[in-house]
């Protein structure tokens, strides 16, 4: 799992609340990489990701006095960043879509169709630059609801509880969405990697 780059000594909340500039700089240094990664994967756009990154730390700075330290700093920053990114996505594509309502799209494509065992492909094939671009593309195809849960849980390595906290969802909803996201991604990756299997034709419709 990917932990944020942690500074050599703990960041002092007390100093942060007093708006200590040097301490704030340490916070930015420690957590900007993970915020940027989440933003770019959520938005699939470098400029939007940069905007979200900047907005996240501006908001964090303004709200520092209210941060009570009950949640981890990383969880708190993920929450601000995710909200910013989802707001941007909503403005961009779905002006009236609520992120709390499971949409019909969420449940599509979870049914396994590609049953090909591509696990044995060599690592350099699985991780080629083309394959990596495809991984990003597959995530971008998920609905924002599913994408956010998947990125927080499986890419950023948050627990179910932390993810629920960030997204203000129940843990059950996190699990359901995670399951759908993973199955949809498995499907997408299977379609991609099956074509790269040396001597086996992909079997469709998974008849037993």
């Amino acid at each position, binding site marked *: 799992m990917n932990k944020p780059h942690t500074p050599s000594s703990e960041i002092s909340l007390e100093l942060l609340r007093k708006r200590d500039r040097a301490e704030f*700089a340490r916070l930015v240094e420690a957590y*900007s990489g993970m915020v940027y990664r989440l933003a770019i994967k959520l938005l699939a756009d470098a400029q939007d990701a*940069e905007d979200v*990154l*900047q907005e996240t730390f501006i908001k964090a700075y303004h709200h520092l006095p209210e941060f009570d330290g009950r949640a981890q700093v990383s969880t708190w920053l993920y929450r601000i960043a995710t909200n910013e990114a989802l707001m941007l996505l909503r403005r961009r594509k779905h002006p009236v879509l609520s992120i709390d309502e499971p949409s019909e799209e969420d449940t599509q494509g979870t049914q*396994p169709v590609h*049953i090909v065992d591509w696990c044995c492909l060599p690592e350099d094939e699985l*991780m080629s630059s083309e394959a990596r671009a495809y991984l990003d593309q597959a995530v971008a195809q998920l609905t924002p609801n599913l994408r956010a849960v998947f990125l927080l849980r499986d890419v950023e390595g948050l627990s179910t509880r932390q993810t629920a906290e960030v997204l203000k969802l129940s843990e059950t909803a996190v699990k359901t969405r995670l399951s759908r996201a993973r*199955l949809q991604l498995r499907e997408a990756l299977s379609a991609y990697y099956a074509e790269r299997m040396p001597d086996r034709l992909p079997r469709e419709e998974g008849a037993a």
Partner: protein
Amino acid sequence: MERESCQRLLESLSEYIDGALREDLCQELEKHMKECENCRIVVDTLRKTIYLYQVNAPLTEMPSSVRRRLYHRLELDEFLDDA
């Protein structure tokens, strides 16, 4: 994945992979996978899918120009070289 038992287990796969599935369901699933090649493949490829995203994550790095502009926007330019 046409059989009813495959269908029913599909919803449990994600939790199974996380090691968070109830013991009795785990056993049921493992027993089923011994007999059902398709389900075994779905579990293996699902696990591999997650693995690939995890190993790829650290490869996404913030460009230094983005970092510079962030520090500038936050009026933290003086701290840029410290880190």
